[in-house]
């Protein structure tokens, strides 16, 4: 069976085609393409502009994907689209495109939870059986474990998402949003060496990032004002933007690894899967690996093709649901900004 997946909950428009072999076995990726709306440095992506971007590109991307996959309309079994969570306007643009294709081709629709898409794709690619999942992106920060047909949220960010924290700090420093603000922060962090004191906000398995962002923002402002240079209290070295990026990453990633470890201890799992855009970060992967190996386990992560929002994960999770008989009628093919991971009945797992 083949599914077409459309994703556009944030600034990436993704289209993917996946094949689930009839006799089982690993899924085959027939096409997985993406076009990203990049805002100028110092600016975030606005819903209106992002939606416009998605509308302008969706037809081109679907055509290109069908061509790359070398499939015809008849081969496609269902059209999967992101129902939420995400930004309203971009979600709507893509939902409209999905409905249009459904009517045009006479195919069933499958509305997919974005977070579940990430989790299922991560499991498929890495082969992780029953991992604790850390889902970290611009819009989400969740520690998730599976239990009786639900992906249950054990911990989450109580205010802004970790990716949002990183993105907004990139704006503060006027760092380029190309290819992604988080990527550029990661590169700068590699050159940082002085660790500055930032708040560390973990409460049980939850955490919060807005206080950290406010502190690092004000440190950046101080650096800006003080032309003679601020010096680190212990090393006496001049504090750089690289040090700020380094300190921010070290602090927020330590928090993420900690809440993940707590969830692992709680459910007795030694596997951890990182999904979502921030999951591309090599330092986060490295830290998580150190934690997991100390627990006698291992970390599973994917590269940017799957970590960053994409259409293939929507196609994959949608097809899993479709195969259990799940479809979304035209009347119900809405989208929603709020859609919790644990609302989805995971019928395709035991």
């Amino acid at each position: 069976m083949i599914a077409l997946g459309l994703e556009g909950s944030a600034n990436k428009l993704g289209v993917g085609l996946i094949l689930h072999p009839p006799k089982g076995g690993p899924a085959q990726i027939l096409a997985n393409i993406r076009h990203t709306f990049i805002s100028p440095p110092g600016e975030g992506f606005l819903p209106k502009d992002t939606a416009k971007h998605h509308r302008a590109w969706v037809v081109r991307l679907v055509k290109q994907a069908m061509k790359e996959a070398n499939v015809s309309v008849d081969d496609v079994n269902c059209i999967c689209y992101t129902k939420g969570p995400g930004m309203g306007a971009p979600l709507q643009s893509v939902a409209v495109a999905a409905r249009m294709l459904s009517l045009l081709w006479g195919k069933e629709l499958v509305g997919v939870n974005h977070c579940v898409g990430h989790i299922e794709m991560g499991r498929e690619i890495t082969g992780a059986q029953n991992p604790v999942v850390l889902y970290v992106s611009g819009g989400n920060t969740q520690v998730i474990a599976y239990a009786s047909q639900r992906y249950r949220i054990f911990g989450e960010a109580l205010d802004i998402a970790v990716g949002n924290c990183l993105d907004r700090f990139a704006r503060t420093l006027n760092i380029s949003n190309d290819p992604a603000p988080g990527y550029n922060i990661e590169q700068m962090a590699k050159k940082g060496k002085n660790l500055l004191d930032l708040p560390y906000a973990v409460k049980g398995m939850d955490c919060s990032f807005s206080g950290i962002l406010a502190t690092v923002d004000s440190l950046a402002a101080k650096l800006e004002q003080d032309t003679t240079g601020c010096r680190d209290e212990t090393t006496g070295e001049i504090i750089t933007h690289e040090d700020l990026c380094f300190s921010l990453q070290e602090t927020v990633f330590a928090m993420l690894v900690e809440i993940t470890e707590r969830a692992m201890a709680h459910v007795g799992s030694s596997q951890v899967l990182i999904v979502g855009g921030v999951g591309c970060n090599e330092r986060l992967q490295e830290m998580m690996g150190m934690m997991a190996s100390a627990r006698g386990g291992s970390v599973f992560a994917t590269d940017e093709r799957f970590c960053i929002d994409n259409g293939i994960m929507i196609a994959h999770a949608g097809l899993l649901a479709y195969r259990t008989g799940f479809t979304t009628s035209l009347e119900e093919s809405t989208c929603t900004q709020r859609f919790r991971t644990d609302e989805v009945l995971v019928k395709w797992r035991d």
Partner: protein
Amino acid sequence: MSASVFSPPHLPPPFVNTVPPPTLISQGAEALLYRTHFLQSTHPCALKYRPSKPYRHPTLDARLTKHRILSEARTMVRMRKEGLKVPGVLGVDCEPAHGDNARKGGGGWMMMEWVEGQTAKDLLVAVKETRKSCGREEVLREQVRNLMHRIGTILCKMHEIGVIHGDLTTSNLMIRHGAQQPHGITDGHAEGHGRANNTSGIETEPILREALVNGEVVLIDFGLATSSIQDEDKAVDLYVLERAFGSTHPEAEDEFNEVLKAYGESSRGARVVLKRLEDVRLRGRKKSMIG
């Protein structure tokens, strides 16, 4: 679930000299709990060791370890001073070493009094087993209510002095053996690791009665404790216990009400907290999120 090989980290000095070596009781995400002895081998104590986390930047690691050990120890000492039943703190080490031991790395420890007894969780599990066989269910229920009452009272006292436990479960409530308690009935372990006894219902009934009616309630594990006098924080603290109780001891949910009843009667401000608890229940802890 695949069985993972989790080899606990080596204990730091001075416990490298300890004879016999401390026995590992439980391992959480951040801390390992050992049974050992204090200054003489006849004086049992619990050792909570927070190893250094290699994934963290060493500066951050030292800062966090120190902060957590100290905040836990401070809370416990403060509570004990205020007359609340918690294990006494016997020793603390959370400073980085200098000189010859400097290579011992980060991490820190706290020694505390050993609580001889069993967890409320194990006790309630034993009650559940006994209930089936003894045929005196109502008597047992009444005894459980008696225990719940004492739990409610101590929780109210804790909140009154501004301590929020942060992780209330029946595993974090120890029931200390009474003075008349015969020894060797249960293998009590601090920090939620007592083992329930397996003797048959008729025999265990008097023993259960003793623990349920006279056992002293001791609060343990203040690793997530905070200071607050806000009704909201107190209500959430109770809500966490209520949820944990409901999922662990569904058969005793009725008796749990006695905790809240006693809580409400124990101080003037407690009723407001219970009112707030109703709101917390309705809203649940988790917000609906924006994608």
